[in-house]
């Protein structure tokens, strides 16, 4: 057992302690809050690096390096619940990614939120989030996982609603919380079922009895449940429901774009890089459960076309194309990125479904870096343009913000999958390659290709609108400046601190340096998972990775790379032709696509009316049910209660009447008589001894007379 595996708990606990200390510090202590949060993240990052290097050192020893440590938490019946953590390549790579991206975003936030009065609260939530997310990553136990998972959801809620004076932010926070809760219900059910089947929630144990290990999986894969489905598939699907909620997959994606109401660093950290990837990570973590299949009655194997993985693939593929097409017609810079995130998460799910853990996780890691980069870049743009988020009111920012532009361009090219030099190309290519080899269907592959085209197109559109052409913000700024100034100030509490200069300006170094670092990673990370040197794949699977250039040309890989390059070039070219070459002149001018295809554009602009459909179906149903419940509660159950009350009150009145006028009256009369009798008797008992003696004397005389008279007769 290595030292770091034993002490892996330190990584999430450090930010947790920081969050606790910040929570009790005063609102004014900004420096303390930022220092604590960033300091704890630095330590967590160093420890993560330590964990990562340990896994690297043990890489390729025998199979996958995996070390488990933990302690017993509490006992119920004969069972112990454990708090366990695991150090394996999957954990290690996620630890490094999460802590590094968090660290950069923490630093960026120190600049971005510098004028916000609730700076300390922000850092408290951020630290809490980091702690929970790192907890999710190291958990070796579905229960601990679930606890951290819910904490992550909570911090997401808190941070989306950070500017709680905006009603839209509050609504978005509630929406995010409730929508993910629907998925989490599935996860909880899956967890309970898993416990019922295997009697343990530990993923791996030292003696091979964990729920993701051979014996438990074999039991679950051979055990059939409703509709001939293996129990493992059913549980896998329930768990995937949780992942769908968190990762914004198709039916439950609606919360993610709305979550952009939160501060931009939050969008970057939580709703692009880490938390939404937790769903993908969950699927990767329980991948053995998802992929296990029955080979014969005694033997189980693993395949990439089990029922559970087919669902994962289809949902992922549909989400990828669906969200990408919506992103084409959006005008809010952060919403475009949000839909892009949903789409990329779909890619990751598809990658997991068709290609296995390494394929999906590779895209997760690269995406985390370039999407964090894009979000921070958009944050920088928004900051520079005085809290303006509408891309139609930007333009020409290339000249005003060169560093941001360069970093953003790198992020955009990485996301679009520009060939050879950008990480997104390699990771997306892996997914497409795996999708093409999927034995069930080729449709996900085509959907993926179409999604890639759209991705390149909408990213080019965004960059062209934001950074090229003329700055369109000043004219409208002047028009608005008198009327909407007060309103705008109240909406963005830190907007008022600018001197009102219309010119956008470059952000301070505290914000641009993280951008530059992330941009570097957005390029470099691609090279750890190229087909020629599949190091990432080998690292996760515990195999040594050889360097082989021939693999680039083998088995259609080259053809696929060319195809995807052509797709990207087409997308980028189309975007440039439509939006870059001929720039829009005014803010009000309709979109090029809107002129060409008004109906389609309207559909896309309104996000396929999903929100409206939900409004008309689920929410209306829910509201109807709520009204029915209200009616039942108010009139039926309430009426019953009222009836009981009345009956009780009536009875009480009756009792009171009988008590006062029947029982009491009789009793009072009896008492009165008794007292009078007592009075009478007590007058005999005068206390005069001589009177008593007199009575005795008279009585004696009477007695004697009686005796004498008796003798005579």
């Amino acid at each position: 057992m290595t030292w770091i595996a034993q002490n892996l708990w330190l990584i999430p606990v450090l930010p947790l302690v920081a969050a606790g200390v910040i929570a009790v510090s005063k609102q004014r202590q900004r420096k303390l809050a930022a220092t604590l949060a960033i300091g704890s993240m630095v330590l967590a990052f160093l420890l993560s690096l330590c964990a990562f290097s340990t896994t690297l050192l043990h890489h390729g020893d025998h199979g996958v390096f995996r070390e488990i440590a933990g302690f017993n938490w509490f006992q119920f019946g004969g069972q112990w619940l454990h708090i366990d953590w695991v150090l394996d390549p999957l954990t290690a790579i996620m630890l490094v990614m999460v802590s590094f991206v968090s660290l950069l975003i923490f630093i960026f936030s120190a600049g971005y939120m510098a004028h916000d009065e609730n700076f300390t609260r922000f850092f408290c939530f951020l630290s809490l989030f980091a702690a929970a997310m790192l907890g999710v990553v190291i958990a070796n136990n579905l229960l601990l996982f679930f606890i951290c998972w819910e904490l992550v959801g909570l911090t997401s809620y808190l941070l989306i609603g950070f500017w709680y004076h905006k009603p839209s932010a509050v609504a978005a926070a509630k929406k995010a919380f409730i929508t993910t809760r629907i998925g989490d219900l599935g996860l909880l059910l899956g967890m309970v079922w898993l416990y019922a089947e295997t009697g343990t929630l530990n993923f791996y144990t030292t003696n091979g009895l964990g729920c993701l290990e051979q014996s438990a999986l074999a039991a679950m894969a051979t055990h059939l449940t409703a509709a001939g489905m293996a129990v493992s598939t059913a549980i896998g699907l329930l768990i995937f429901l949780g992942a769908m909620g968190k990762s914004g997959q198709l039916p439950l994606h609606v919360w993610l774009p709305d979550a952009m109401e939160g501060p931009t660093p939050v969008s970057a950290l939580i709703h692009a890089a880490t938390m939404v990837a937790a769903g993908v990570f969950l699927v990767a973590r329980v991948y053995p459960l998802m992929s296990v299949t029955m080979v014969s009655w005694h033997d189980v194997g693993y395949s990439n076309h089990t029922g559970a993985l087919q669902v994962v693939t289809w949902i992922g593929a549909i989400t990828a194309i669906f969200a990408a097409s919506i992103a084409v017609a959006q005008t809010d810079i952060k919403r475009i990125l949000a839909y892009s995130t949903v789409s990329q998460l779909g890619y990751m799910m598809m990658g997991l479904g068709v290609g296995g853990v390494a394929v999906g996780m590779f895209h997760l890691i690269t995406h985390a870096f370039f999407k964090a980069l894009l979000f921070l870049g958009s944050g920088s743009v928004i900051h520079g343009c005085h809290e303006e988020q509408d891309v139609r009111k930007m333009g020409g920012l290339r000249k005003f913000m060169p560093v941001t532009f360069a970093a953003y361009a790198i992020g955009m090219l990485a996301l679009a999958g520009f060939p050879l030099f950008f990480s997104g190309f390699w990771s997306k290519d892996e997914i497409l390659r795996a999708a093409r080899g999927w034995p069930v269907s080729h449709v996900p592959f085509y959907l993926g290709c179409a999604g890639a085209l759209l991705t390149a197109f909408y990213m080019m559109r965004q960059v062209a609108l934001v950074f090229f052409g003329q700055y369109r913000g000043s004219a409208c700024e002047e028009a608005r400046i008198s009327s909407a100034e007060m309103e705008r100030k109240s909406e963005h509490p830190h907007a008022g601190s600018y001197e009102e200069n219309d010119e956008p300006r470059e952000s301070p170094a505290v914000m641009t340096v993280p951008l530059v670092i992330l941009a570097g990673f957005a390029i470099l990370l691609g090279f750890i998972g190229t087909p020629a040197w599949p190091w990432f794949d080998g690292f996760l699977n515990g195999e040594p990775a050889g360097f082989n250039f021939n693999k680039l040309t083998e088995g259609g890989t080259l053809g696929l790379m060319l195809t995807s390059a052509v797709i990207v070039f087409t997308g980028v070219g189309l975007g440039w032709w439509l939006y870059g070459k001929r720039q829009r002149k005014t803010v009000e001018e309709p979109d090029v696509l809107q002129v060409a295809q008004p109906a389609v554009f309207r559909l896309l602009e309104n996000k396929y009316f999903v929100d409206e459909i939900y409004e008309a179906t689920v929410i209306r149903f829910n509201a109807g049910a709520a009204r029915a419940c209200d009616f039942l509660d108010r009139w039926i159950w309430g009426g019953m209660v009222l009836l009981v009350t009345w009956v009780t009150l009536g009875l009480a009145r009756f009792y009171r009447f009988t008590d006062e006028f029947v029982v009491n009256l009789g009793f009072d009369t009896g008492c009165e008589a008794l007292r009078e009798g007592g009075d009478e008797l007590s007058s005999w008992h005068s206390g005069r001894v001589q009177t008593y003696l007199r009575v005795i004397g008279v009585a004696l005389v009477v007695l004697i007379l009686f005796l004498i008279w008796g003798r005579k007769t």
Partner: protein
Amino acid sequence: MTPLQGCLLVSALLFAIGLAGAVTRRNAILALVGIELMLNAANLNFIAFWRYGPNPEALSGMMVVIFSIAIAAAEAAVGLALIIAIYRHYRTVNLDEMRNLKG
């Protein structure tokens, strides 16, 4: 009239006087004197019934009377002590004013 009847007559007279004294006197000490008289009437009865009874040799009546006189002495001592205590408390020995035993 036999000597027994004479004795009984005297003793009845004595008892009646004692009773009248005990009932009518306001002074507690005089009431006590009356009680002593009644007691002595009873003693006289004992002596008379013994002396003129069927077995005058046995001295049984004499013994009972001696016991009775001893008890009467003790009782008189207790009675006088009570009267002194009452006097200390109420500053009077008038029986009419001692009504605290009333229910």
